[in-house]
Structures are given as structure tokens and as C-alpha cells.
């Protein structure tokens, strides 16, 4: 059997675009981790709830995309602010176990809220991108994937610029570096925290909209959010570059594995590959490719 290059190219493009979305969601995680050392395990539910909200705006209320999507962004900002203000703010300087557990609780709550408001099991977003397919050789590639990759790159660029040049971005990096020193300089640390949450939710929402516009909105998006953790782990918890490099790696591993391994293994192998990667990275190099290795002292 000779190698099917068309199929391979198709897997590559799909993997790259899925991986870029994972990287985007992972950025949402890294933002919060960098600013406040809180591990946000409610990421999957935030992705899901913003996808459902987009569905309400675009499909149920019938708003055009240029009005609906900004409303979604405002919703995500608000969600991030509420979570930070009412759940995380009272727990500043608590042990890491409480911080992890509180985000788990938030995730649980959001999951109930989603069932409460949108009891449907699946739904599809209206088309955001043109549907025509692109032919490259024997490969048939849906145009959406290319759009998704483009938008993800744009968001990365915007975030990088923000962190390099904007006052708040610089304040966030400073907070991540040394919280005490930043407080002494008169930077409002609580505002940095809430901004990081708001940004993280917006980034997660963008990821959610992109991935649900390729596929559909279902409870599986929570798992997508959790898979983004494999990107975080592989790239290193506090590294933006790591997320951008590791995202496509995970995405490609997932689609190649799903494409070539399913016939040799059981179905659904695609969905566990990121989790297997997590375990492997943990055993070999727990701090990831670009993560900062912390040395502990008593």
C-alpha cells in the first residue's frame, strides 16, 4: 500500500488548526497561572458556556456575527470578572489545594448552569466562515481550518504585543515575577488578577467559538478544555512560547494518531492521546519543554 499524501496533508491541516485552538485555550490557562499562580481547572466549562452563549446570540436570537460576537466577548469579560471577584479574591494566599478545588467547584457549578439554561445535548453554530473547499493535489481541505489557524495566529500576535507594550501587560508580567515588589511599586495587584481572569475567559471563549464552528457544541467541549492541559503541560506551565509550540504538536499527534492508529487499536484513540502525552511528559520532563524548573528549599 503506497502512502496516501492527500490524506496526510488533510490530517496535517486539521491537526494544525485543532492544535492552534488548544494552544489558544492553553494561553487562557497560562495567563491566569502567570499572574496569580491559580490553576484554572474550570477552563473546559468556560469554553463550553461561551460556545452555548454564542449559540444563543447567533442562532436563537438571530443576531449577525458582527454584533453577536462582540456581545460574546463582553459576556466572557463579565464571566471572568465575576469568577475572580466572588470566588478567587476571598481565597488569595490559600494553599494550592483549595485554589484547585475552588476552580473545580466553579466548573461543577457552570456545568449545572449550562444544563439549566441549555438542556439540549448538541447544537451547531451558524456558519461563520465560507464553506468552499480547497483542493491541494489530491487533498480536499475545508476552508474553515485555514481561517481558524489564521485567527489563532492573530490572537497570539495581539496578546504578545499586549504583553510587550501595554501598561497592564507589563504590570501582569511584573506581578508574575515578584508580587511583593509589584505591590511596593503601587501596582494594584487585585486589578491585575481580575484583568488576567477577564482576558483568559475571552481567549477561552474565542477558542470555544472556533472549535465549535468546526464541529458542534456538545458536552465534549469540556473534554476539549481538559485536553488543552496537555498543551500546558507539554509546553511548560508559565510559557507562552511553549503553548504556541506545544499546541500544534498535540493537535498533530491527535489527528495522526486518530487517522493511522484507530484501525490497529480501539475506536476513540484520538481522544485519549493528549492524556497519554500528559502522563509521558509527567514521568520524563514534568516542567515541560519551555517551563521554568523550580528548585524548592525547605
Amino acid at each position, binding site marked *: 500500500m503506497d502512502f496516501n499524501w492527500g490524506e496526510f496533508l488533510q490530517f496535517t491541516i486539521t491537526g494544525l488548526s485543532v492544535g492552534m485552538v488548544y494552544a489558544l485555550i492553553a494561553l487562557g490557562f497560562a495567563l491566569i497561572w502567570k499572574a496569580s499562580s491559580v*490553576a484554572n*481547572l474550570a477552563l473546559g466549562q468556560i469554553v463550553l458556556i461561551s460556545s452555548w452563549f454564542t449559540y444563543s446570540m447567533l442562532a436563537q436570537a438571530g443576531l449577525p456575527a458582527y454584533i453577536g460576537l462582540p456581545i460574546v466577548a463582553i459576556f466572557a469579560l463579565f464571566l471572568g470578572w465575576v469568577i475572580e471577584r466572588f*470566588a478567587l479574591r*476571598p*481565597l488569595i494566599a*490559600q494553599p*494550592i*489545594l*483549595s485554589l*484547585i*478545588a*475552588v476552580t*473545580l*467547584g*466553579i*466548573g*461543577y*457549578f*457552570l*456545568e*449545572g*448552569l*449550562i*444544563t*439549566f*439554561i441549555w*438542556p*439540549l445535548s448538541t447544537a451547531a453554530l451558524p456558519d461563520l466562515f465560507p464553506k468552499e473547499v480547497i483542493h491541494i493535489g489530491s487533498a480536499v481541505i475545508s476552508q474553515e481550518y485555514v481561517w481558524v489557524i489564521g485567527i489563532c495566529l492573530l490572537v497570539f500576535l495581539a496578546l504578545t504585543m499586549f504583553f510587550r507594550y501595554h501598561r497592564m501587560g507589563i504590570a501582569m508580567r511584573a506581578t508574575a515575577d515578584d508580587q511583593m515588589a509589584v505591590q511596593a511599586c503601587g501596582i494594584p495587584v487585585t486589578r491585575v488578577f481580575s484583568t488576567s481572569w477577564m482576558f483568559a475567559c475571552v481567549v477561552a471563549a474565542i477558542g470555544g467559538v472556533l472549535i465549535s464552528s468546526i464541529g458542534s457544541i456538545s458536552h465534549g467541549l*469540556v*473534554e476539549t478544555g*481538559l485536553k488543552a*492541559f*496537555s498543551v*500546558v*503541560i507539554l509546553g511548560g*506551565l508559565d510559557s507562552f512560547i511553549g503553548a504556541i509550540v506545544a499546541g500544534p504538536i498535540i493537535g498533530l499527534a491527535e489527528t495522526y494518531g486518530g487517522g493511522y492508529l484507530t484501525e490497529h487499536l*480501539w*475506536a*476513540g*484513540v484520538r*481522544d*485519549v492521546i493528549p*492524556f*497519554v502525552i*500528559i*502522563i509521558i511528559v*509527567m*514521568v520524563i520532563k*514534568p516542567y515541560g519543554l519551555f517551563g521554568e524548573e523550580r528548585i*524548592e*528549599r*525547605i
Partner: protein
Amino acid sequence: MSLPCGIRNYNYAQDMAILRTRTHWGLLIAILVILFTTPLYLGNYWLGVFNFIGITLIAATGLNILTGYCGQLSIGHAGFIAVGAYTSAILTTRFEMPFLVGLLCAGLMAGIIGIIFGLPSIRVKGFYLAITTIAAQFIIMWVINQWGWTGGQLGMTVPFASIGGYVFRSGPSQFYLIIGITVLCVFFAKNLVRTKVGRAFIAIRDNDLAAEVMGVNLTYYKLLAFFIGCFFAGIAGSLFAHWNITLTPEQFSFTDSILYVGIIIIGGLGTSVGPIFGVLFIRLLKEILTINVVPFLEDKLTMFPSGFASGVTPMMFGLVIVLFLILEPRGLAHRWNLFKASYRLWPFSY
């Protein structure tokens, strides 16, 4: 105020005893008598609820040893329970082994799987370990979903528990089986943390580097904590399988794993009564919600699409977990201690 007035210790055994006074003994005997006569007062529905409480309590006790005492956060506990449930189910149906063998093998199997997924705990902790256990949950559930022997998505039917020809089919008999094993497990857990092993666990939780410097073998004790915690989970899973008699992968979801973490937080991490309070609180809250609140909401709020009220229970659970972490991070066990102290000093509390 851990003891009433006027109690003195004359030797070490007295100092270490759990039950110190006649009142302690009286209360313990009264509670055991009430517990073992429960089938006389309760109907089959509530017996079922208490059976489930017992099973959850075994699993939560295991998680409390692992997370509460040893400090290794595990968010994949439902996966380990599933390992136990399916091990026991496969052994009793496909190999026709007796129930007790299935029960024991379920515990051992879950413990071994727990050690395998606990291996990263030697190098990492905190958030990294939490992610590893989430990954463990998804990998375990994938295997169960796809493997031929487990019946996949359709699940499998399991016989009732039986010991030496006696089949635990009726509600009361199941109650005695489950509560009996639960009491044994709680007793074991209570005493485990008073031994050398328990002190090593607590040392690792409080500061693992300092513990290592003092000569605690981190690798051994962390993996031991994983083994014991997951062994309890396996026992709970086996009991669940033979009590519920149908097994499907949905019964061991990721949200259940979160709920177990919530249970021990609500009860109080690292306390022996914590899991009991937490399980009772969560399970009774669930009963109140499903019996009273959900039908009421379905009646009153007809403008929502049907099926919306099934979201109320997870919403309340999430809210309760968050509120406990913010308002009473030491859990119900701490409140219980405060109550005992004020009861002993009453009416002269100063």
C-alpha cells in the same frame, strides 16, 4: 478542649485510646445499635439511599487518606472506583469467582492501577499531580468504554453479592453487608492515621522536603498512599457493582471525581469524621433536591425548556463546594469540634 473536665491519664495506653470515657462507649454502642437496626425504621427507598451513602463513604475515606492526610490531590477517583467495579464484575461473571474473591481482587487491582498512575507523584505535586489524575480518569474510562470484556457503552449485568450460597438480594441484607464493610473501613482508616504510616503521610502533606530530610521514604509512602486510597475505591466499586447490578461507564464520570474531592472538602480534609459528614451532607442534599426542589421547579418554571431542572443538582453542588472553601475551609468536622467544645463547657463557657 479535646476531653471533658477531670479526665486524667495514668499511662500511655490511656493517653492514646480513642474511647476515653463511659459516655464515649455509651455513644458508640448507641450509634452502632441504631445503625444496625436501621432496616426496622426505614423503607426500601431510604435503605437504598443509605446503601449508596455507605459505598460513597468507603470511597471518600480512601480519598481522604490520599488527599486529606497525604496531600496528594487526586481528581480521578471515579476512574479508580470504576476499575474496582469492573474487575469484580468481570471476575464474577466471566470467571464465575465467588463474590469475596471479586471484592478483594477489585481492591488490589484498583490499588495497583493507582500505583501506576501515582508514579508521577514521586516527581511532581500540586497542580501537576491533579492533571495526571485527570488524565488517569480519562484513560481508564476509555479502556472501559472500548474493551470487549467490559461490555463497552452498553455496560454489563452483574449478579448480586453472595457469600457461601446466601444471596444479598433484599434491601436489608444489602444494607448489613455494605454498612458492615463501611464500618470496618472507617475503623481501619481511623487507626491507620495513628500509626507510623499515618504520621509519615501527615509529614509528607505538611512539607514533603522536610519529611524526606527527616528520613521518611517519599517514594514508598506516596505510592503506599495511592495504593491504600485506591484500594478503598476498588472495594467501593465492587460493592457498587454488586449492589446496583448494572454497570455502565457513565456511572463513573469526571464530575463524580470532582464530587468526591468536594465531599472531603465539605467534611473537612484530614479528619477522620470529615468524610462521614461530607458524604451525608452531599447525598442528603441530593435527595432533598431530587425529591422536593426539582419537581417544584419543573412545575413552576414552565417557560424553560424541559429537562432544565436536572442542572439544579450540579449547580448546588458546585455552589456548596465554593462556599465551603470560602467560608469554612476546615469543613464540617471543624464545626463539630467547636460544637463539642462548647457543649462540654456549657453553661459556663468562659
